[in-house]
């Protein structure tokens, strides 16, 4: 039986295999929502979906695409913005 605090689904369940063919449930915190484009609201690619403590350890180049407005606008909206200027 899970402990009382684990009965609610606020934590995500991860099944892990131990040595000796034992399967155990590990309870982990859920990931934050995906990063979205500021104009059209589409999900951004190239932006990892991790908890802040893990984002801190990551390199800056791994956290957003290395182009103008990278990590803020999607590529389509960025192109339109450059064209209009």
């Amino acid at each position, binding site marked *: 039986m899970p402990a009382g605090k684990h009965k609610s689904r606020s934590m995500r369940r991860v099944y892990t295999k131990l040595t000796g063919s034992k399967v155990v449930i590990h309870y982990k915190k859920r990931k934050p929502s995906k990063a979205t484009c500021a104009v059209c609201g589409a999900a951004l690619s190239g932006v990892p979906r991790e908890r802040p403590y893990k984002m801190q350890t990551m390199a800056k180049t791994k956290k957003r695409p*290395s*182009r*103008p407005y990278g990590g803020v606008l999607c*590529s389509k909206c*960025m*192109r339109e913005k*450059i*064209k209009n200027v």
Partner: protein
Amino acid sequence: MFEIGRLCVKIAGRDAGLKCIVVEVIDSNYVLIDGQTRRRKCNVKHLEPLDKVLKVKKGLAHEDVVKELKKQGIEVKEKIKRSKRTKEAKTEEKAEIKKEITKKQKTLKPKKQKRPEKKKEKTPAKPKKAEKKAKPESKPKKTVVKKAEAKPKKTPVKKAKAKPKAKKTTKASKTKVKTKKK
């Protein structure tokens, strides 16, 4: 549309938003560009043409491209290439840093020598301290007297308190012994 000398803005990639001119037409889809961007082959879809076409020869060198763009009021920032540091270069750098540190320490040492001179100035002042010390010597005598008076007063009280306790314990111990004997 993308003839040689066409001014363009790059739309895609890390050079997006930078201006360049077409230097060579490779294909119906690909052109060679140069300018604020890196000199590279580029898909036409990744370029946005502007209304100006410069009169330029085919396959113009980078330096000439920079000059042509300067006439149009577009300045090109030259990137400084970082040379890869070898192990020998690193060791040399470390040695230089050590030398600098040792130099600093040497410069600091003479300052330290000045401090003892100040102490020497203070030495004549020492006798004053000795005088001050002499005064406190008189005070302890008074305190000694007080302590001597205070001590005997306290001790008898303690003894008085201690004695009854001892008696009680002895009585209790005796009784216990008796009980044990029974």
